[in-house]
């Protein structure tokens, strides 16, 4: 690599950084993305020229195939499928890095001059080490991302899967991977091939074991982490083949993924290690076990909880009955009877009077694809002079910023989307809160229920609002398995259960 090449690489890396920094504002983000893409294109052209492989036709064939598939997917995929798409692309990038690592580990793809220099300067061990490490990180990324994409696409079970001796196996595969990579520094020839295959297999198994254990709600963290890993894999592959541009951009991607992971972990009050090794959030420990000796209060709380569950069940039954009778009435009385007359304190009634409303979307909104209905509800309210804002919890949904993208798809102005810190003090001031398919992110139990998975997790202060309308599918505890006391609140809670699309349409038509 000549000095000119290094300078060009540096310039391109700066362009990439500039592109990313432009992505911090909505106005400049589109241009920022294009700038990064342009820098990448220049990087490809520069590589073709400097390595003198312009004449190799197989390269263009491969690029063309990939470009076609990629473009097709990019234009066809629906916004709702974004998390799994991101995960899938991510995996492919990791896989490509692993393949580059395989080539370098076998000593393929170096020019004669390069091969000579490697021997001359004794870079051999470094090349072998980085090549194998690229294979390891790349394979973990590939397999992990595929599993994550499968879970998000609902081909694989959403629940954490735990196999026999899971933690032990995970650790074993990790140690094996590292063992093969490190051994690879010292050997050559056939032994190197053994190390390569060993790394390949052990890393894939590690990727499978660690990702299969991650459950739905931990996905934002996992995707961010895999994103980071794919960058790191590229960067390490870049070290193996001595390409500064690759090292630089891979490093940037690695940092971004790590930062997002960190943000997500903080927002969920989870430790990264506990997700990777110690297993995912288990349902709240069954209360009756611990308390008998130590704490009578806990017993009381457990009994309270049980009572509440009973109440809840009764409420659900009651609601179902009510819905049934309503349906009956509607069917029987045709259009002649104004059916809504007898249920005065309804959710729609509350919204009809409200002047200031906060909407809290969650993963349920994504599942029901109800973002357009949410927008319609907001439009209707706004047409009546109501102030409508959206409160977005950092981990609502299945990837960082998931809710924002869905609401943007439904044409919601991004200036109405508020982050948790910005809006949390306003819940007590508004007239009503509409919750759509969110649970754990607004569960006040996170503040008190010591020992539960969500304890200590920052939550939206929905419980401070005077009126709460819950448009959830059911009242089952969320992913964390902790009951939400808001549902059993005595006053000011309206449960609109069922498919969010339908309940929202009912709300909209009910607002007088």
């Amino acid at each position, binding site marked *: 690599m000549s000095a000119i090449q290094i300078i060009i690489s540096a310039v391109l890396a700066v362009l990439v950084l500039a592109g990313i920094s432009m992505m911090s504002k*909505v106005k400049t983000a589109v241009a920022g993305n294009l700038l990064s893409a342009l820098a990448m294109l220049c990087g490809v052209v520069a590589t073709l020229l400097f390595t003198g492989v312009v004449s190799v036709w197989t390269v263009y064939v491969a690029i063309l195939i990939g470009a076609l*598939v990629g473009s097709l997917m990019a234009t066809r995929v629906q916004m709702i499928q974004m998390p799994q798409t991101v995960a899938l692309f991510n995996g*492919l990038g990791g896989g*490509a890095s692993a393949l580059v690592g395989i080539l370098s580990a076998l000593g393929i793809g170096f020019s004669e001059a390069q091969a000579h220099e490697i021997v001359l300067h004794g*870079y051999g061990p470094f090349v072998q080490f980085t090549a194998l490490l690229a294979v390891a990180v790349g394979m973990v990324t590939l397999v992990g991302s595929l599993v994550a994409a499968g879970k998000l696409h609902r081909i694989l079970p959403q629940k954490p899967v735990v196999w026999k001796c899971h933690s032990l196996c995970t650790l074993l595969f990790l140690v094996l991977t590292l063992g093969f990579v490190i051994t690879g520094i010292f050997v050559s020839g056939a032994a190197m091939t053994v190390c390569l295959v060993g790394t390949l297999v052990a890393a894939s198994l590690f990727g499978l074991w660690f990702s299969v254990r991650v459950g739905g709600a931990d996905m934002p963290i996992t995707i*961010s982490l895999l994103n980071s890993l794919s960058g790191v894999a590229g960067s390490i592959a870049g070290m193996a083949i001595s390409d500064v541009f690759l090292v630089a951009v891979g490093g940037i*991607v690695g940092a971004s993924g*790590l930062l997002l992971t960190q943000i997500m972990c903080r927002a969920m009050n989870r430790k990264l290690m506990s997700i990777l090794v110690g297993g995912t959030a288990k349902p709240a420990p069954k209360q009756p076990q611990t308390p008998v000796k130590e704490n009578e209060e806990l017993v009381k709380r457990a009994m309270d909880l049980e009572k509440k569950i009973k109440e809840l069940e009764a409420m659900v039954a009651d609601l179902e009955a009510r819905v049934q009778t309503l349906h009956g009435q509607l069917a029987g009385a045709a259009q002649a009877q104004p059916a809504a007359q007898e249920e005065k304190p309804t959710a729609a009634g509350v919204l009809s009077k409200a002047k200031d409303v906060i909407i809290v979307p969650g993963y349920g909104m994504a599942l029901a694809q109800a973002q357009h209905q949410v927008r319609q509800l907001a439009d209707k309210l706004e047409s009546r002079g109501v102030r409508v804002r959206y409160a977005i919890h950092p981990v609502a949904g299945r990837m960082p910023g998931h809710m924002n993208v869905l609401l943007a798809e439904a044409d919601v102005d991004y200036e109405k989307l508020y982050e948790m810190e910005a809006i949390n003090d306003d819940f007590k001031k508004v007239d009503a809160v509409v919750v759509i398919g969110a649970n754990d992110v607004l569960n006040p139990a996170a503040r008190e229920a010591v020992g539960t998975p969500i304890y200590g997790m920052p939550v939206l202060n929905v419980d401070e609002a005077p009126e709460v309308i819950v448009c959830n599918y059911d009242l089952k505890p969320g992913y964390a398995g902790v009951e939400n006391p808001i549902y059993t609140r005595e006053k000011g809670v309206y449960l609109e259960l069922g498919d969010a699309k339908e309940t929202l349409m009912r709300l909209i038509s009910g607002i007088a």
Partner: protein
Amino acid sequence: MIHPLILISVFIVCTVLGYFIIRNVPSLLHTPLMSGMNALSGVTIVGAIGATGLAFLSGSGPLAQIVGGLAIALAAVNVFGGFGVTHRMLMMFNKKKK
């Protein structure tokens, strides 16, 4: 070939720079950011092209072309798909602003 220490320092510098720049991105744009980063992680296409091309020129045989070609194709899917998807998402954020 570049000295390993230089490569490692480049990695560290870029990681730190990237970390501080990305910290300014609001959570509103985290999905586009992530998918943009995702597209960038396809930068490994550069390495794949170099390795495959050189293997072709030095006559390393068909296996290298298959492995390398696959690497290029996968990375290209990552790059084109990633930037495409990011662009689509960002356009959604912008269309309100007309």
